[in-house]
């Protein structure tokens, strides 16, 4: 290993699945306003958090994501009225069950960020990146390709 990469700190890979109408626009706003946040997230845009099959999250973990973040509109602000509320139930169950089988709770994070909250988006990414960094590289349920 070259000296350079040996010295390089490990950086987590985080998959952020966000809804088109709120959080994606929030991320855009963070960008437009030039708010700095860690470059560890790979954003996947979906129409609505209600569209997220919990399988996406499990698959992301299996395929090597160190953390998964899901973010949608605040309750009551969903573009499809209740997509985020239905999703909320699915995620509550998923997070608890992942933790039960032994996968750290901080690897799957759920939050709400609206289109006007560029600041909050950056804060969320900073927070999640710090948490996942503290856990270290994912090594449970990760497929070796």
């Amino acid at each position, binding site marked *: 290993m070259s000296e350079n990469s040996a010295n390089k700190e490990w950086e987590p890979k985080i998959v952020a699945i966000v809804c088109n109408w709120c959080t994606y626009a929030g991320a855009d706003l963070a960008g437009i306003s030039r708010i700095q946040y860690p470059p560890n997230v790979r954003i996947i845009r979906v129409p609505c958090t209600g569209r997220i099959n919990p399988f996406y999250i*499990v698959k992301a973990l299996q395929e090597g994501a160190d953390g998964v973040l899901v973010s949608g509109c605040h309750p009551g602000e969903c573009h499809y009225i209740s997509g985020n509320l239905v999703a909320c139930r699915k995620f509550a169950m998923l997070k608890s069950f992942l933790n039960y089988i032994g996968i750290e709770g901080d690897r799957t994070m759920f939050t709400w960020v609206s289109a006007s909250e560029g600041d909050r988006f950056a804060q969320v990414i900073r927070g999640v990146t710090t948490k996942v960094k503290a856990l270290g590289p994912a090594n449970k349920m990760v*497929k070796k390709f």
Partner: protein
Amino acid sequence: MAHKNSQKRVKPEDRKKKVIGVVARGCTTRSLIIHLQERQYERDDVCIIGVPCDGYVDGKGLKVKIGGADIVEGTVDGGQLKMKTSDGDKTVALKDVLAECCLTCRFNNPIISDVMIGSPAPAMNPDAEYNDVKEFEAKSIEERWAYFIKEMEKCIRCNACRQACPSCYCPTCFVEQSQPQWVGIGEDKTDTQVFQFMRLYHMVGRCVDCGSCVSVCPMGVDLRKFLKKIDKDCFEMFSNRAGSSMEDMPPLGKYDEHHDKQDFIYNP
């Protein structure tokens, strides 16, 4: 009757075979209610003949208890199970060999029926229903993970658990889907873990604790440890017990704006 022999489960596709009458004990009526909630057929399409249930014998456990002898014949007599076996006559107390799910069953009497046979069975011990889960929850995260992978390593992906499950009736299960291919079909351990995790997750609000999966599993995977957690969470978060009421909706198909738990939502 051994638990295994009671596993002719009713699935929605039985409708095509013109099944019109079902002899149902408590857990069977729960799975019928789930089919009805999920609009698989109409209430009028089935005639439910309800029977009270005192629990079923866990065949594998019984065999271990009597030292692996083959059972030729058996009768129940006042709480005692009397058997003729390849190793002579044996007697065990019925309560010592009942399936785990039956011992703590909350719904051993039919929830819905058109006709009832017999008088209601005495209650089992539902207060102990989550003891196992609570004990597991108290373990450290590494211990829990070690147990999960140890159990899942036994699994040979025969899919018997799914075949036996009354709630697993999807025409194309995710296991067989190829676009996208959710789980690899090789021997990779993580594929087995993901398969198990997702099938268990598909039981949110749908597992009636009938014990079929546990009883058919050839490898003795401790599925119930995980299924009961889902049941417990579902009750604690959404006050839902799978298939316990005709008025209920599937818990993941609805929401409650004011009472749904939001404390897991991250706020930086």
